[in-house]
């Protein structure tokens, strides 16, 4: 094995599950393996362009693969199914707060949800998250601010109907 291959394998091991988690949070589990596999195939093809900080770049590649290979409708259905699974899986925990915030996530738009996932679940800095989305850092900050506000608003409206929420899910 050449040293390039070793380096690539190390990056794969570090980033694979995070790329997978990102794809799942965008389009659900069913297409995730396929998209991840294609993402790393492209990454190897473009290995000479891969920056040292590989994760944001890989997420950007995965984002393009998703857009180019999975129909918008399939992505939407996939993520709806996925979010139902998140919520039902967590019913067992009986943690109302977690349920509430996941339910609130489900009410956001795809773009808003993506921004929050990149920051809260992927732990990216605004600078790295902006790279994934291909926008400027100031523009990202504005969008993040809006998404957080929307999340808070949805969460509050859900809090008011909490009893109904639990009923709905049981």
């Amino acid at each position, binding site marked *: 094995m050449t040293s*390039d*291959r070793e380096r*690539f*394998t190390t990056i*794969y*091991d570090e980033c*694979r*599950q*995070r790329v997978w*988690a990102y794809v*799942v*949070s965008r389009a659900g589990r069913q297409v995730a*393996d396929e998209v*991840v*596999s294609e993402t*790393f*195939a*492209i*990454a*190897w*093809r473009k*290995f*000479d362009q891969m920056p040292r900080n590989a994760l944001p770049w890989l997420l950007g590649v995965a984002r393009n693969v998703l857009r180019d290979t999975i129909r918008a409708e399939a992505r939407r259905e996939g993520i709806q199914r996925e979010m139902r*699974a*998140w919520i039902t*899986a*967590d019913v067992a925990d009986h943690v109302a*707060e*977690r349920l*509430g*915030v*996941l339910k*609130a*996530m489900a009410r956001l738009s795809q773009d808003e949800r993506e921004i*929050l996932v990149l*920051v*809260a*679940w992927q732990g990216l800095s605004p600078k790295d998250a902006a790279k994934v989305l291909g926008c400027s850092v100031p523009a990202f900050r504005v969008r993040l601010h809006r998404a*957080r506000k929307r*999340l*808070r608003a949805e*969460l509050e409206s859900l809090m008011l109907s909490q009893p109904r929420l639990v009923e709905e899910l049981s």
Partner: protein
Amino acid sequence: MNPMEELRAARPAHLTGGPVDPRTRQAELVHAFAQPTQVPRRGRKALTWGLGLASAAAAAVTAVALAVGSAPVVSPGAPDVAAEPVTLSAREVLLVAATSAERRPAEAGDYWHVSSRSRGLHPVNEGFVISIEQESESWVGAEEQWGSSRTLAVKPATDADRAAWEKAGSPRELTFAGRKRIPIKESAEQPHIRHARAQEIFWLGRNVTMSDLRSLPADPAALKADLLRFYEGKDTESDAPMAEDAWLFRVTEGLITDMPVSPEVLAAAFRMLADLPSVTSLGRVTDAAGRPGTAIAIADISQRKPGDTAKGVLQVRLIIDEKAGRALARESVVVKPGGLQAGLEPGTVWSTHTILETGWTDEHP
């Protein structure tokens, strides 16, 4: 708690990471490394293969120089695209196939059913090349078997061959291999079904029975030793000398493509091939049925009879779906014309044998 912290805490457990499933990891890395890492070289025509009859002309004209023993570069189904360099070794591909084969469930049934299609080229004495396409199916039980086969077409292989045939007055019957006469058939004939009571029905360098297949060792070294008991340093079809690797490849490709062996024996066969140094990988290809796979190959000498000096060189390819752990097809390509391939251009796909279906069933025709 602020909403962002709540959100962070609410990340579903399965999205928090953990190790990748080792098989997924292996398959994904293999897939990635099968990709070219550099700009393809220009000015080098790709070899077209695994082709239907209509594009057979492309095979004859899109000849590339194939170096024996090296891994030539193949970009199937896209004749205008420059060839892609391939970095994946045959060993890696075969080891993945072995792992996948082991995962396959052991199946059962009364009859082993195989359905396949084949196509071969034959230079005829009239000065051009014809192709013969056939379809066959078999149902093999412990003591009896059924076979169904039909010729789909016997006709000039390429447009140029057709022109030559027409120029010769479109004879309905042609001569090849010195004296055999063969009629032109432009449409498929009815299937012809045969039934036989026989036990020795598979070929492993010798005729073997279903129970011989069941007793094959599931260890690669033991399997190799078992098969080599019947190797005498010569070709399976003639007395011409044949190298051990080439002989093992020929015997094992049958075992892998269409014989009812257990998942463990199949895996051992893949591993045994993985250890043969003269087997090379040709990278991603498409078989004659349009299915993607990875081709591994070995060089083979072609001569009509021992001592024949007009020897040719063929590249014998096994197309495998390594993720499914099975073989899709075997094909042979002319590297150096000679022997049975005298008169054909280098790069011509001389024969294809495409396995459409294999499996156990309780029914027979």
